[in-house]
């Protein structure tokens, strides 16, 4: 499960990279849904690839 520190790091990067750009909200929504799916063990194949990249980068280590 994503812990607080990982969530903050992910959203921190999202903010730095995307805030102010047109797709910021779209990717934010996708990140929330994607983390929830990841936490639930569901595939991320329907999630925006830009959100998936962030999730993969910050996901908990196995």
């Amino acid at each position, binding site marked *: *499960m*994503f*812990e*607080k520190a990982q*969530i903050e790091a992910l959203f921190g990067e999202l903010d730095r990279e995307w805030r102010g750009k047109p797709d*910021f*909200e779209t990717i*934010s*929504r996708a990140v*929330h*849904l994607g*983390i*929830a*799916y990841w*936490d*639930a063990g*569901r595939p991320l194949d329907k999630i925006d690839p830009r959100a998936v990249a962030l999730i993969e980068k910050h996901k908990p280590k196995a």
Partner: protein
Amino acid sequence: MTKTVNHVVTRPGRKHGDADVQIPVAQDLSTVPGIRQRDADVSFYSRVYPQETQNIEKAADRQWVWSVYSEETLIHRKRHDEINEPLVDAAAVSGDLEPTGTPTGEDITEAIRLKARELGFGEAGFTKFDRRYTYTGKKRWVKYEHAICLALEQDYVQTQSLPSMDAEFAHFGTYEIEGALTLDLADYIRSLGYYAQIHSPNDNSAPYIPMFVAAGLGQLGANGQLLSPHFGSRARLAIITTDAPVTYDEPVDYGLHQFCQVCQVCVNRCPGRALVPDKVWWRGVEKNKLIYERCRPVMARYDGCAVCMKVCPIQRFGAPAVMEHYVTTGEVLGKGTHLLEGYTFLERGYFGPGELPQFDRQFFEIPHGRNEEWLFQQFKEKLINEGLPPEEEIVGFAKQVRNILVKGNSTIGDE
């Protein structure tokens, strides 16, 4: 564990022009369209115990909140009130404005719905304005029988930062935008030849949620808020009543009435323990009845709180994803995770799943009822504890009561 699908609800996309969405409702979540209610009880309570706006009934604590607001909240609230006042004033007299166009007599439901969506309303639905819910002080004010229920979505990103000033900017900012948009939509209805009366979200004529449920725009959540399919409770509600020929929508069973009983995240995460797990029958409606006195002290001191909005999976992920996940797995999407359940509570720090802030009893002792009722309460306690006060104090008390009565009650307020 996969669930059997009882029915699939098809709704328009979140924004105008978006594709329709499908919401699968599991068999074990299916109840009734809208909400369970006993019509005779609703009528009885409205007749014998009519409701009044909280801006009057709870005036004492609504005045008190200004004494505990942070400096930042105080500044923002005053600025918001200045912006909002002309919008609320315009709404108050909107029902008297003459139509500007010529009516054709044709049903204009879809024309109004389309215009509402073009203006940016996330949901627009039609139902009868149910006068049983009208607040006492507004009974003579409501002019027209058809209600157009309008929900304006609040900013997604800002809302996820709850509780925070950033989220409060979204909250009050949405009211300001909505106030202006309802004026535009009312103008449009008048241009088609009909009257339009705006029921401001900041000067409510009734509790609006029952009519939104009747119009099929969502179902009542355990957090006491309308859960609409795309944005859950992340919306601000307004109504326009009209004499235009329209067709009413039907209530819908999105599965949310029962889903809340399975989910319970808002109930478990409420910092003030103001939400209750079980539904009760209240004024003829089966609902999770919020305990106002547990909610208000937290709201006032912690940037509007609204943790119940933040942690609702329908708000966070939308009903299509949450219901699909439930059907596929039998689980509540996000339940038990830091992502959904975690929140930071100002100086108290972070609270993850299973952790709640603690408050002592004194924290919840705030003024109750109407202003004059609260004064009487204080006076009674003084009599009991200290005996008969000096005459000048009694006269002072009487003057205070008179001032309140002369000033009268305002129905205007933000929630």
